């Protein structure tokens, strides 16, 4: 197996309010036309608000739409998007050399409405992904990356590594989220929705515009599939955590700067050689402020800076993917685009926000995203370099393990806490298990049950271990996985929508409707700033964690990795985490 492959962008598709194909989207962007409009949808936004919504009457006219029956709306769009992207390249989706990687925050979340904890199967993110992958007779089980607003960029990063390391030749990266009452009410509870179309980096910015969209990016190691005269390569990628707050962006921008520096280092591209930066640019006060600081830390403050939110709004799990595809198109067209909504600079660092659409020589373009849970991600697209060699798979040693289930905490095979007296009473059990080894921690009681479970498992895992002394904060990675995502807390947020008498949606609940928040809590608690990835899968797969950690070590992305399974739904739970290190690494 060749494990030093180049990762080429070979085909893509975008379905959004801006257009229903990549071609039409780019036409609108070049004409500086926004997909944001005032909508008064009775359910999503009863009082009326600005949003970026897909025109379903136009979608219905798309080729093949009528033939896709028996699928949920988001799945239909994903199928259409993949079909369209595959029509531009000769890749066999059913080959064992092709992997589907999904990126979504909430999937078919509308299906949990009025259901309580009696969930339909399709509400599970993995099932949604499997339905779409099965439509294409996929040979391999799909991966689902659900990591808040960085999901799209992170899914590309995961795809890049799986190809680069020789595991697969082709990756079909599919991202999507639809605008639902669930999401809109949550952002409103955070008071982060702007009453005007969003204005990234502008002095008068006052919040984001929520949007929806679906996109597909096909990556391949096969250069013959590339139709461009000058191929675009994914040359570097990284992720990080602020270890600061679960919803508020970092006050320094250091986490995002770490991810940027690391992606550039992998690509072998200096800050000086970056031609354009496309950031998250949501137009909330603190996100944009943080990004300007991160750019300064990474010596990129003078580079042309783009936010595409003025066109698409914030399309959540799809945003990183849609915007990366637009960056790839920018390189193909050798053009910069105007940051719609921006007029007068309103961030603390003097950054160079794009004010017009014009030709620009582009060789290296950096795309970043940041999200709830304090996570950041970056990818470097390049026409001049494929990035550093992969080398060989690092050998792994397991330095410690912790399992929490059946009211017991087991570390390295020894029962360290037996809470049999709490059978059937998870809240009391987990509270006692945590208190048993930890000094009082005010944040614990505020967490949702999934976060309490993950935090407690890692508390035991790191107890008496010198891992935090031996490795730098940014060299310790977190890679967690589960089946139920954040559905236990999703149900609680949904209850406040199903029964409006019970009071308004709570931001303290909504913030936990993302599975990666547990990693944010762990990073804050232990001051860890390394790679972060939350994967949704159908069952625990220990080999997968070891393999992914090995790739992280081989690429120099981490020196230690906390990885495993953390799942909670309706009182049923299991955590099984291990601390992995590279074998032979000097202790």
């Amino acid at each position: 197996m060749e494990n030093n492959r180049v990762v080429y962008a070979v085909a893509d598709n975008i379905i959004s309010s801006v257009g229903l194909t990549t071609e039409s989207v780019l036409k609108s962007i070049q004409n500086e036309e926004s997909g944001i409009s005032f909508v008064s949808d009775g359910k999503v936004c009863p009082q009326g608000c600005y949003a970026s919504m897909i025109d379903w009457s136009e979608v219905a006219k798309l080729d093949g739409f009528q033939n896709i029956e028996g699928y949920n709306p988001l799945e239909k769009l994903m199928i259409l998007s993949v079909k369209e992207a595959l029509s531009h390249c000769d890749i066999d989706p059913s080959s064992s050399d092709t992997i589907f990687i999904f990126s979504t925050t909430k999937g078919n979340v509308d299906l949990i409405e009025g259901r309580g904890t009696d969930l339909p199967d399709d509400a599970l993110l993995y099932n949604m992904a499997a339905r779409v992958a099965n439509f294409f007779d996929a040979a391999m089980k799909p991966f689902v990356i659900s990591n808040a607003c960085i999901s799209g960029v992170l899914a590309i990063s995961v795809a890049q590594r799986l190809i680069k390391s020789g595991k697969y030749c082709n990756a079909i990266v599919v991202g999507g989220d639809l605008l639902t009452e669930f999401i809109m009410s949550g952002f409103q509870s955070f008071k982060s929705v702007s009453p005007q179309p969003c204005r990234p980096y502008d002095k008068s910015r006052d919040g984001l515009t929520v949007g929806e969209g679906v996109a597909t990016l096909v990556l391949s190691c096969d250069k013959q599939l590339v139709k461009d005269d000058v191929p675009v390569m994914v040359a570097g990628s990284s992720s990080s955590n602020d270890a600061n707050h679960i919803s508020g962006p970092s006050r320094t921008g250091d986490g995002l700067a770490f991810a940027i520096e690391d992606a550039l280092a992998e690509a072998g591209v200096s800050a000086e050689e970056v031609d354009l930066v496309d950031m998250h640019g949501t137009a909330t006060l603190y996100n944009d402020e943080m990004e300007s600081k991160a750019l300064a830390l990474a010596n990129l403050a003078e580079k042309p800076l783009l936010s595409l939110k003025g066109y698409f709004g914030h399309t959540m799990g799809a945003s990183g993917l849609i915007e990366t595809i637009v960056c790839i198109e920018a390189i193909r067209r050798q053009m910069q685009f105007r940051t719609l909504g921006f007029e007068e600079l309103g961030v603390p660092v003097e950054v160079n926000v794009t004010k017009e659409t014009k030709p620009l020589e582009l060789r290296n373009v950096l795309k970043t995203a940041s999200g709830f849970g304090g996570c950041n991600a970056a990818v470097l697209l390049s026409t001049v370099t494929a990035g550093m060699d992969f080398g060989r798979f690092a050998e792994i040693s397991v330095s410690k393990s912790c399992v929490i289930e059946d009211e017991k905490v087991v570390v390295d095979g020894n029962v360290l806490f037996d809470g049999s007296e709490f059978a059937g009473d998870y809240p009391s059990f987990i509270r006692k298990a945590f208190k048993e080894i930890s000094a009082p921690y005010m944040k614990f009681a505020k967490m949702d049950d999934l976060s309490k479970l993950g935090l407690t498992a890692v508390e035991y895992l790191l107890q008496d271990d010198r891992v935090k002394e031996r490795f730098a904060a940014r060299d310790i990675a977190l890679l967690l996985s589960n089946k139920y995502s954040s559905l236990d807390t999703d149900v609680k947020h949904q209850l406040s929508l199903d029964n409006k008498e019970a009071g308004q949606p709570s931001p303290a609940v909504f913030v936990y409707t993302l599975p990666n928040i547990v990693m944010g809590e762990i990073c804050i608690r232990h001051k860890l700033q390394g790679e972060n990835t939350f994967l949704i899968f159908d069952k625990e797969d220990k080999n997968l964690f070891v393999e992914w950690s090995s790739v992280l070590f081989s690429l120099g992305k981490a020196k230690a990795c906390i990885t495993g399974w953390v799942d909670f739904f309706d009182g049923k739970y299991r955590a099984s985490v291990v601390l992995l290190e590279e074998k032979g690494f000097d202790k």
Partner: protein
Amino acid sequence: MENLINDLKAQLIEELNLEDVTVEDIDTEAPLFGDEGLGLDSIDALEIILLLEKYYGLKIENPKSGKDIFFSVKTLADYITANRK
């Protein structure tokens, strides 16, 4: 006023999930946010906005304008007394 202050403290404990904190533990004049005192954060601030609406029928649209009002239990109580209908 004394009653209002005690009610407020109990409501803060309940709504913000302040485990192991009692009404007696909360200093009426001490800062609610930041590293000292209760160490509340931006999510707690949003929850306090909901609390004021739920228990006192008071609406604060812009969380930033709440900064002075949310300084301590005392400033919160003063605001409620001045604005409650």
